[in-house]
């Protein structure tokens, strides 16, 4: 790495299922203000560049990047939007700093999904307009197809997937940001109606409104701005084919996660993630996704994630605590802000600021986000308490 990059400020707002009292701009302003305060009270005039992550249809605005600058204090500043999960936005900010030309870069994302009357319509518009959309199916069926293939290929059981839901929702009970914490049993989950078999209604995470703003800086700036920098040791992103029919070979395997992890691990010098990582926040948009992703991220071998989960290896006291925050199943699904939420939860653990959820001796963490149906894009980042 030619130049070290650290997270020097963390701010968030919302994390509620509805937020009708504030506009999205006001919610982001709150998150940005907290972030800049957290970074030693920096004024946004002293920030060099800003990156937002969003998609037009989620906001109901075309070229939604228009409305980014004001609430971040970024008027007449370098600002760009990434049409991707906010971990890709974070990657873009990291690259900007590594050019050597920009020293302090803010990155933000939000979800105001409660303003969308029918999210499923929007999700369906992401499918191929000629080959897939004419079926007019609820897009969850794509997850059902993939889950079925994953269970078949890996030997994972529906009970093991249900166990992911049980743990994440239980973990969420102590997280002040979580909206979907619950004590729920495997029987409750398996007995509930199907969304798209084998995917049950509890296997899918629920929507959430919220905003996250993170501030990144060069090593030199970071050490002056904060006494608790969190270092970005590695980052990687990858995309598999968008064509479902061409994805058959890897339909159960989440190849995008493998590509992203390979790049991130190489940059961070990680060769044995299961033993080298102290915590992981891994996408669990759907229950099976957490297990599929753990395998694709090379944290365990194919078909092993479910068994390790049952053995407690991913519990708070286990070898590698996974989604101790509650994940998307427990906290809620923040759409393009998911990635920054993963980083937020990981970074708070690394700082020792995770409250009741705090784990001992957290030195190195992984955050991984997937962009959701029907995409095959994922981003992985390795965070560390030491550079």
């Amino acid at each position, binding site marked *: 790495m030619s130049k070290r990059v650290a997270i020097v400020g963390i701010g968030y707002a919302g994390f509620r299922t509805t*937020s*009708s*009292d*504030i*506009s*999205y*701009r*006001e919610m982001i*302003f709150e998150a*940005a*203000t907290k972030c*800049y305060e957290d970074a030693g009270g920096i*004024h*946004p005039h002293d920030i060099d560049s800003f990156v937002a992550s969003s998609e037009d*249809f989620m906001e*109901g605005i075309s070229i939604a990047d228009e409305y980014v*600058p*004001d*609430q971040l*204090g970024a*008027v007449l500043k370098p600002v760009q939007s990434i049409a991707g999960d906010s971990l890709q936005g974070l990657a873009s900010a990291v690259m900007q700093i590594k050019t050597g030309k920009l020293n302090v870069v803010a990155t933000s994302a939000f979800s*105001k999904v*409660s*303003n*969308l*009357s*029918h999210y499923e*319509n*929007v999700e369906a*518009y992401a499918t191929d*307009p*000629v080959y897939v*959309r*004419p079926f007019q199916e609820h897009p969850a069926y794509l997850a059902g197809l993939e889950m079925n293939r994953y269970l078949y290929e890996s030997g994972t059981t529906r009970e093991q997937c249900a166990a992911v839901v049980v743990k994440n929702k239980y973990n969420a009970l102590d997280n002040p940001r979580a909206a979907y914490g619950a004590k729920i049993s495997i029987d409750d989950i398996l007995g509930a109606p199907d969304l798209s078999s084998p995917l049950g209604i509890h296997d899918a995470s629920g929507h959430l409104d919220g905003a996250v703003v993170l501030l990144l800086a060069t090593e030199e700036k970071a050490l002056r701005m904060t006494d608790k920098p969190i270092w970005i040791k590695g980052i990687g992103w990858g995309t598999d084919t968008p064509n479902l029919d061409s994805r058959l070979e890897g339909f159960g395997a989440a190849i995008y996660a493998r590509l992203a992890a390979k790049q991130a691990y190489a940059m961070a010098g990680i060769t044995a993630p299961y033993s080298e990582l102290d915590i992981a926040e891994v996408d669990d948009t759907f229950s099976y996704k957490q297990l599929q992703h753990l395998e694709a991220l090379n944290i365990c071998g194919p078909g092993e994630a479910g068994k390790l989960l049952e053995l407690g290896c991913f519990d708070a006291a286990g070898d590698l605590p996974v989604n101790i925050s509650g994940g998307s199943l427990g906290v809620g699904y923040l759409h393009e802000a998911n990635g920054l939420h993963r980083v937020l939860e990981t970074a708070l653990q690394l700082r020792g600021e995770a409250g009741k959820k705090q784990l001992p001796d957290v030195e190195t963490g992984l955050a991984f986000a997937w962009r959701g149906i029907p995409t095959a894009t994922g981003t992985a980042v390795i965070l560390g308490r030491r550079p």
Partner: protein
Amino acid sequence: MQDKVKVSGGTGLSEEDIRSGKIFLTEDSLDCAFAWDTGVAITRYLNELKKGKIIASECRECSRIMLPPRMFCELCFRPSGDWVYVQDTGTVNTFSICHVHWDASRIKEGEKPYLPAVIEIDGASSGMGIMHLLGEVEPDAIKIGMKVKAVWKPEDERTGAITDIKYFKPL
């Protein structure tokens, strides 16, 4: 190593190709519905419009009286201070005479063109304009710098929207 061909593809079709069914088309019309939370500042703005008043917010730091009102000043990056009523009169900063509808279809013969303008509202800080429409004026008579006044919908027809002002007319 240099290939001479630098332009490739981009096969043009005529309207006739499409009308005559020479190519296949898959049609879909988008159906997305949004209900945007208006938030602290714009909720107040809309409520005041319903009462026939225009309200702005003032920044305690730079003293700008900002319109539309905002919960925060985007330049000082501080929460706004007091609410301030401004006038329903202003000055035309710039205008247009528009002969096409929002969907780019042309207005019909004899139909009046749209008259959009940026209007700097009296009582707000210099340069604080909003986009609105002009009315009760011949297009040729509109000038940059012209003074205008809001024409409000009758009170019982107002809904708390920017269209509670029908248009601005010359003062």
